[in-house]
């Protein structure tokens, strides 16, 4: 099989690293070769962050390039737009419609662009945009937004059994948050 590419993008501190950990665990359990590439350090201080997840028979490059992503999970709307050039034509992008203003917008040096969802659709992306923050809150905590988004992503990979995702949550999430995260996963998947 050809190597598949999934990107997780967001704002430093939004929990993207835990999401990529779960995704990596799921893919490894399906006996794929897997590479997960992230950047630590300075960008975690509220900067734009990206994680590349690649899987297949044999994965070489640890990164995903422009025009290569089969799917992007965006934890924030502006970040979805920032990374849209990485999506393949006809690729799927899942967008949490939450807006987190970057410093240039807060200080008035720039404006937060409008109508981003329809613009991404017009550019040729399949956009699945929802308020996943509200969905996570409904499941019990805003902090579970990362798992709600993984739930949504699971919908687009029917070849991977739901049980593999559930198992990954059991292994990776601390016990006291497990029930909440399972719920957030379900809510995200079925939203």
């Amino acid at each position, binding site marked *: 099989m050809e190597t598949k590419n999934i990107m997780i993008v967001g704002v430093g501190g939004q929990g993207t690293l835990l999401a990529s950990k779960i995704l990596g665990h799921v893919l*490894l359990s399906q006996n794929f070769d897997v590479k997960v590439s992230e950047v630590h350090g300075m*960008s975690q201080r509220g900067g734009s962050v990206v994680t590349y997840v690649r899987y297949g028979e044999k994965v070489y*490059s640890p990164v995903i390039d422009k025009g290569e992503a089969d799917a992007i999970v965006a934890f924030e709307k*502006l970040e979805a737009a920032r990374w849209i050039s990485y999506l393949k034509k006809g690729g799927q992008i899942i967008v949490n419609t939450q807006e987190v203003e*970057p410093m*240039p917008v807060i200080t008035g040096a720039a404006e937060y662009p409008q109508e981003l969802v329809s613009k991404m659709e017009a550019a*040729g992306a399949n956009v699945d945009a929802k308020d996943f923050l509200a969905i996570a809150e409904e499941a019990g905590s805003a902090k579970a937004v990362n798992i709600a988004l993984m739930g949504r992503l699971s919908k687009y990979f029917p070849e991977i059994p739901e049980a593999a995702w559930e198992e990954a949550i059991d292994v990776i999430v601390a016990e006291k948050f497990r029930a909440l995260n399972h719920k957030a996963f379900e809510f995200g998947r079925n939203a």
Partner: protein
Amino acid sequence: MKELMLGNKALARGLYEAGCKVISSYPGTPSTEITEEAALYDEIYCEWAPNEKVAMEVAHGASLGGVRSATAMKHVGLNVAADPLFTISYQGLNAGLVVCVADDPGMHSSQNEQDSRHYAEAAKVPMLEPADSEEARVFAKRAYELSEKFNTPVFLKMCTRVAHSQSVVNTEERIVPEQVPYKKDPTKVMMTKNSRDAHVRVEQRTKDLIAFAEDCDLNRVEMGDTSIGFITSSTSYQYAKEVYGDNASYLKLGMIWPLPEKLILDFAEHVDKVVVLEELDPFIENHCRKLGLEVVGKETFPICGEFSQNLVRTALGGDAPDELAIADEIPGRPPVMCAGCPHRGIFYILSKLKCMVYGDIGCYTLGAVAPLNAMDLNVCMGASCSGLHGFNKAMGEQGEKMSVGVIGDSTFIHSGITGITDIAYNMSNSTVIILDNSITGMTGHQQNPTTGKNLRGEPAGKVNLEALCAALGFNRVTVVDPYDLAEVERVVKEELVAEEPSIIISRRPCVMIKGTVHKPPIKVNTDKCVGCKMCMKIGCPAISVRDKKAVIDTTLCIGCEVCTQMCKFGALCPAAKEGR
């Protein structure tokens, strides 16, 4: 067991499996997790040293004591550790010593993009370079074998994309070699004849290592289509494989110093065109040219920045895939100081007083970005102290009355102490502000000698900064709370005009440390808010102004109350005092 592992974690696993017993390091992205992950094994003694030079010496000392040891650092840390390294290369070891160094092409979290491979050549120390996590684990073990066989430290070179990528690893059991007894050996004293003899031995060692490199399995030939042949290593190998697969041949180098001469020439003879693919400097390329080979190299691929599959594809004449595009300009999202960061108050005052601020290395480098714009420059660990002293020697009183150095607690211990010693000894009336946030912040919250805890979080020795500065000769040492803007302004003004050297210790723990008390978010009294945006001047990510009223993001605000001191209209109130 098959496991998905970060490159740094896999490297730590390799050190563990090789029976490593002592690791001493200084944190630095992207190398930090090597030591943190190794510390999770009870069998390995791990510590944070004050700096990389100390760490290198500690690791070498452990080798002399007869156990396998290691040290890990980022590329710029190797500059600090270079002094002992060059002589350890001469002197040799008693048990294996592995020096892990992580480069940062693309400078994701670094101040320069230097290529550590030059150190291998300069210090005449062999260097292995893994291309993924499994190789990181295996090469760590091979590095010890090589180290002991050739009586030399061995570099294990990582880069950001190997260090911070997870890939599949097969773990093995730990095997601990027997401790080597220590014997006094008069030739180990590095002076006169001993050093001259050692240099001759080192030159012979390099020749032996070249012979070893010719047919060791660390270097691998993969023959495919012979119209193009890549000589490459690390992630560059992965990018070439990604693009060309079997439609090219590869000499994949796992040992990148010293380089195998015959193997390179032999490979070149079997392909029509040789392409040297390597990030940063033309290191392998220059070596190939010295061997008389005609190769495609840096005239085709950039020296600056990271590579990727598209970069390789397009540089060699291929087409990049189509991209989706939207017309809007997407505003940047640079990293910012966290809401409640104790550095914010200091930088606001320094900005307000229009000080020349000599910065340093750490989270507080973010004091340079808008709207604070409070940092003039930075160079390397500790330069804020010594560089400031030089500036003031040139500028005299004019400089002394408007300039400060700012340095974090961990950076101060690393390389600031010698700089302020120069200030006190050679008497410039300089003012240095130690930003003591009780942690090494930027690299992800490591303990250091000022925190009273060791790497594992256990109680440890603690440097008393006030007493240390006093002992170095500073009569003026003042501690301030950076949340108290008026007090910070008063103290900074006072110390700038003081006719002797001064230290200001700005003391407040990092808000991201577990256990730091957060207060309820600040409330906005919209009747009092006039939308003047004074509160925006501190650059707090929790504050914005919408419809001419300040808005507090309650998920970010930790109630530090710095913004309340900015508001002349009493519109920003601590939650507890609301309605008073």
